[in-house]
């Protein structure tokens, strides 16, 4: 027995070590990728590409349905038919209070379109080759659409702004195509962080600081924490990404999403955190608040927290000023933020901003181009339903973008403006609002009286990102106080904020009266007792 054992042992040891060596060798030589396909090995991608559409055609050889899936999405159509109101919304028709509208400005605006070549109304939305796969699936960080290229990247190195020294490099399309992968904060952010014409301009809760945030900035996306990417929550089915501002889900009553439930949209907090997200303490008020207060209201205490400012005011009425030499003006404020440029007018910016709060039930309505506006008041670009009495509504935090923009003084409507272009009607060429409005309105078959003015507008953006660590969530007194964050909301009684003047008056008078009565009674007794002696 003993001798037999002795002979087997060295053999086993040898085998064990050779196995170890093999494993170590494997790890050293090959990095395991989670995808089952290595795109560098695909022959269709081992060639030079002259343009984006050529790459797309190569992609479609294997991913046969991808382009047709994209064709159905808002990312492609920039059109959203509201399921309840039937309104035609989306970037194609909405007039905002940033750069206005895309009509006649396509080549500039569509640098953020998931396609190639949308430079005018003749764009072929049925073209599969015009779908831009790379803008979402690039992993190299080198694929960048040219700002005025109607969705194309530069195919040769060229400067932007034109004639400047900043060179926009042409990407190596072969390299980018061979390195495609999942979407990332960087790919989504390439457009969504720069909406409105620059970093952080539009949303307030989305800017380039969210490309690689720490968890203090965003508890979900922090690279030192959960490291979520956008699609972790904004899940997609056949390229259709969930989460829409046009039908914001103000209250998700389904709770945690598991297969088999009827709600597959993971873009709500409740999808993962359920309807009673807080540990039950002495008072269960935090969980009780879920029915009236959106998670984001307490958990996004301030926005634009990542060191990048967001634009809060944009006044187009001051645009067009030149200096004495007839040159464009650009000025900066004390913090170094640009507060005037000739082409765009005056701006204000802010960081670490306290949101505004309002009841939201989900349906956000947009002021359409053919709708009458009241020039005597500030015009709300978007309005939404919701009140304390509406069981579907909750209090939401918003960034409110304010500004002044041109409108049709004769017809009392908003207007579109032709800003960008090489023709002399373009505002950025002639600085003539009348021509710019006329050109844009004619192109969109909208009436224009020929008489314009400027009107102040507001635009509400619900906040859902830059979710702070729980330690920084708002405490009760942020709202339950006389001058708290919800001091402007009406239609309901809130402890700590509200009281009834008469109730308090009667109450305190009664207390004072009691004390006075006791005092008089007591003094009277002392006096009478002394007198009796």
């Amino acid at each position: 027995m003993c001798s037999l054992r002795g002979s087997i042992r060295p053999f086993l040891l040898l085998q064990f070590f050779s196995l170890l060596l093999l494993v170590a060798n494997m790890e050293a030589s090959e990095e395991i990728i989670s995808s089952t396909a290595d795109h560098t090995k695909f022959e269709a991608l081992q060639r030079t590409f002259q343009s984006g559409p050529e790459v797309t055609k190569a992609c479609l050889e294997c991913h046969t349905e991808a382009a047709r899936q994209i064709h159905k999405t808002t990312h492609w159509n920039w059109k959203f038919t509201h399921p309840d109101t039937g309104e035609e919304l989306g970037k194609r028709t909405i007039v905002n209070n940033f750069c206005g509208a895309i009509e006649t400005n396509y080549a500039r605006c569509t640098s953020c379109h998931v396609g190639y070549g949308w430079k005018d109304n003749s764009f072929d939305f049925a073209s599969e080759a015009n779908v831009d796969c790379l803008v979402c699936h690039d992993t190299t960080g080198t694929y960048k659409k040219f700002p005025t290229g109607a969705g194309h990247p530069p195919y040769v190195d060229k400067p932007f702004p034109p004639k400047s020294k900043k060179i926009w490099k042409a990407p190596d399309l072969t390299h980018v195509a061979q390195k495609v992968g999942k979407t990332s904060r960087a790919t989504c952010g390439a457009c969504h962080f720069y909406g409105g014409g620059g970093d952080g301009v539009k949303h307030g809760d989305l800017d380039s600081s969210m490309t690689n945030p720490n968890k203090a900035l965003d508890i979900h996306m922090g690279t030192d924490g959960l490291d979520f990417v956008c699609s972790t929550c904004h899940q997609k089915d056949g390229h259709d990404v969930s989460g829409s501002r046009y039908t914001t889900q103000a209250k998700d009553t389904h709770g945690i999403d598991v297969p088999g439930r009827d709600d597959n949209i993971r873009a709500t907090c409740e999808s993962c955190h359920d309807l009673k997200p807080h540990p039950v303490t002495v008072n269960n008020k935090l969980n009780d608040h879920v029915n009236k207060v959106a998670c984001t209201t307490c958990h996004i205490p301030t926005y634009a927290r990542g060191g990048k400012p967001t634009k809060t005011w944009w006044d187009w009425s001051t645009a067009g000023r030149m200096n004495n030499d007839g040159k464009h003006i650009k000025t900066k404020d004390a913090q170094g933020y640009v507060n005037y440029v000739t082409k765009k007018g005056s701006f204000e910016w802010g960081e670490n901003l306290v949101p505004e709060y309002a009841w939201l039930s989900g349906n956000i309505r947009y002021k359409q181009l053919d709708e009458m506006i009241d020039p005597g008041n500030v015009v709300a670009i978007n309005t939404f339903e919701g009140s304390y009495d509406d069981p579907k509504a909750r209090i939401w935090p918003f960034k409110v973008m304010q500004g002044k923009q041109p409108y049709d003084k004769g017809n009392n409507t908003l207007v579109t403006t032709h800003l960008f272009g090489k023709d002399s009607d373009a505002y950025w060429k002639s600085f003539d609002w009348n021509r710019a409005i006329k050109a844009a309105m004619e192109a969109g078959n909208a009436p224009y009286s020929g008489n314009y003015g400027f009107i102040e507008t507001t635009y509400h953006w619900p906040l859902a990102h830059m979710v702070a660590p729980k330690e920084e969530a708002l405490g009760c007194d942020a709202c339950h106080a006389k001058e708290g964050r919800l001091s402007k909301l009406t239609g309901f009684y809130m402890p700590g904020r509200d009281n009834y003047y008469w109730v308090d008056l009667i109450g305190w008078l009664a207390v004072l009266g009691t004390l006075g009565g006791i005092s008089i009674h007591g003094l009277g007794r002392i006096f009478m007792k002394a007198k009796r002696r």
Partner: protein
Amino acid sequence: MSQIYYYSLFERFWHWSQALLIIGMLITGFEIHGTYHLLGFEQAIDLHTIMAWILIGLWLLALFWHTTTGEWRQYVPSDPDSMLAMVRYYVIGIFLGAPHPFHRKRAEKHNPLQRMAYLMLTMVIAPIIWISGLLYLFYPYWPSVGMEGLPLGLVAVVHTLGAFAILCFIPIHLYLALTTGESPQEKLMEMIVGHEAKNG
């Protein structure tokens, strides 16, 4: 002379713990109401809620004690004449040094006005506060029992008025307890040790 124990150990415990809880709830309650800042809203809510549940527990104990011992009879209203005599005493007699119209016995330890005051406190003011307070606490569940039509502001008003009533009760109670006896300590000691101070 043998001592009469007017207040059992339980009653004394009940009285003082209730007194502490009520004062604590007034302090936290008026902070929640927004009258001042002391502990912070959340702390105030937490303490107010904890104290409310303890007080409810205490009351259930007291209810059990009063029914089983029969001591609830101490709070049955007296005849109107004797109550009127007490009123007359507090309004006139007490100033003139008139004798107290009520003669205390173990089975009748409270004077007719006292009986009435405590009855009102326990049967009117306290229920108003309990009911409105519990409604307040379970506010999010109103819709599930078909009460979504009830305005929270109304519940708040009722609860606040109840709190003011208690706030008025305390000084009257202290004034009468501490100044109408032989000495200020007399009633205080009685509520601490249970019996009247021994006559020297």
